[in-house]
């Protein structure tokens, strides 16, 4: 190609530079991407439909499995929506414990994201170092809940774990983690090669961020004051003095730095929460009351990637409808303008810097037709002679 002919390059759905399947249709002119369009739907599992008819307690198990990186946010948001519907109040200690797990998850998610960005850049050493710090958080999860990825931490009006007795361990680990991340931050904050690779790439201005109504870290990296923990406090966030981490340029570099600063902020917040948590053992959870009249509950939380929203309707102690709006759903539209007028080599960097979660996005399964064996094979590209 000598710049004479435009062509469409399919980037994905399976591609080494993508951590999850998505099809990016890139209109190319040589090395330059003229425009890009995203097609998704490769990860859907019919979760919203699967929830219908289940008891509210069983719903927690399904909601937790929507995403492997933010299961706590999903289960906390769902549980709180059910509690709102049933007018259930929770004890202070339970609220603090949910907050500790949510903040641990935020640090975990940001470390995964930054690590993957380093991997996409070819900086694999730092990728492994950052994921070693992430391992520390998984160890804390294992110690607290018994699960490293899926924690089964929430129940309606209660939690399945207790930090009673491990307060000092948590505070010590937070100090170690902060020290570790600070050491690696020095590497990528001043590294000239990395700066060259990430500065002024994938820029989202504040005006664009407001126009596209972005949420979460990518909105804050572009200068938007958007944080549900402050805008619409839930659990006990209003008791803590927390200010959002705001950057202004909104390029790939700023988004990485914004997430790094949020890791430090979350570690400090966890220490404050641990010190404030009542030093008593949790009362074993009572059996959830039956919800027989039709009632609806709404809740939103600040998940690691941004605002997560749940709407739940319950009748006869069964979920009638559960609608969820994960953060990626809210900001996926920004991908197309970001993929306009960029270089092909920058595409993986741009995609990983907005940290999209296609497992969260693709929850819906549309069944048009039940396939027979041959049709299924044809769909998979397997040729048969019968």
């Amino acid at each position, binding site marked *: 190609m000598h710049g004479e002919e435009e062509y469409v390059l399919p980037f994905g759905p399976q591609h080494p530079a993508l951590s999850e399947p998505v099809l990016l249709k890139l209109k190319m002119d040589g090395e330059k991407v003229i425009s890009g369009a995203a*097609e*998704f*739907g490769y990860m*859907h599992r019919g979760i919203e439909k699967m929830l219908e008819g289940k008891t509210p307690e069983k719903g927690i198990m399904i909601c937790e499995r929507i995403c492997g990186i933010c299961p706590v946010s999903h289960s906390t948001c769902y549980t709180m929506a059910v509690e*709102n519907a049933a007018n259930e109040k929770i004890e202070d200690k339970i609220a603090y414990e949910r907050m500790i797990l949510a903040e641990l998850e935020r640090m975990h998610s940001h470390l995964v994201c930054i690590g993957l960005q380093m991997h996409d850049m070819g900086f694999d050493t730092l990728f492994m170092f950052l994921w070693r710090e992430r391992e520390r958080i998984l160890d804390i999860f294992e110690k607290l809940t018994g699960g490293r990825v899926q924690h089964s931490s929430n129940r309606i009006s209660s939690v399945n774990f207790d930090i009673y007795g491990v307060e000092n361990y948590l505070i010590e680990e937070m100090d170690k983690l902060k020290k570790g991340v600070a050491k690696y931050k020095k590497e990528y904050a001043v590294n000239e090669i990395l700066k060259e690779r990430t500065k002024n790439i994938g820029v989202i201005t504040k005006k664009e961020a407001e126009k*596209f*109504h972005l949420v979460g870290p990518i909105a804050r990296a572009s200068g938007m004051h958007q944080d549900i923990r402050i805008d*619409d406090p*839930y659990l006990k966030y209003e008791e803590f003095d927390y200010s959002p981490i705001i950057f202004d340029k909104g390029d790939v570099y700023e988004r990485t730095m914004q997430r790094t600063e949020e890791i430090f902020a979350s570690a400090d917040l966890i220490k404050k929460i641990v010190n404030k948590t009542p030093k008593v053992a949790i009362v074993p959870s009572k059996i959830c009351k039956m919800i027989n009249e039709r009632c609806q509950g*709404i*809740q*939103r939380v600040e998940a690691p990637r941004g*605002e997560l*929203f749940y*709407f739940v*309707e319950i009748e006869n102690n069964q979920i*009638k*409808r559960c*609608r969820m*709006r994960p953060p990626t*759903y*809210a900001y*996926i*539209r920004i991908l197309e303008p970001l993929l306009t007028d960029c270089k092909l080599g920058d595409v993986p960097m741009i995609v990983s810097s907005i940290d999209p979660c296609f497992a969260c996005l*693709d929850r*819906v*399964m*549309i*069944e*048009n*037709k039940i*396939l027979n064996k041959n*049709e299924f094979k*044809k*769909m998979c590209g397997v040729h048969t002679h019968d």
Partner: protein
Amino acid sequence: MMIETSDVSVNDLEGELTKRVSKRLITITCIERNDFFEVIYHFDGKNIENLKVMVKKDQKMPDISKKIPEAKIYEQDIQEQYNIDFGLPKKRLFKAEVE
């Protein structure tokens, strides 16, 4: 959390949604009842504001995505799941179809 809910008719919906152009649309929820759909628009603000509309199963819904661009992905989602006509192209966002 404070939630405000108001009911509107399909004819007044476009006007009511236009009044809320400056607000962020969180999402649109659709619930299937016996012979109609209940569509709820959730708007962000100091409190979450819900705008609820009852739609007959063969009734057309206004496409608000020109005024509120983020509505498009949610409208497309509902059009696919519940077959409510928002006047959007019949392409599939979440695809599982065999030609």
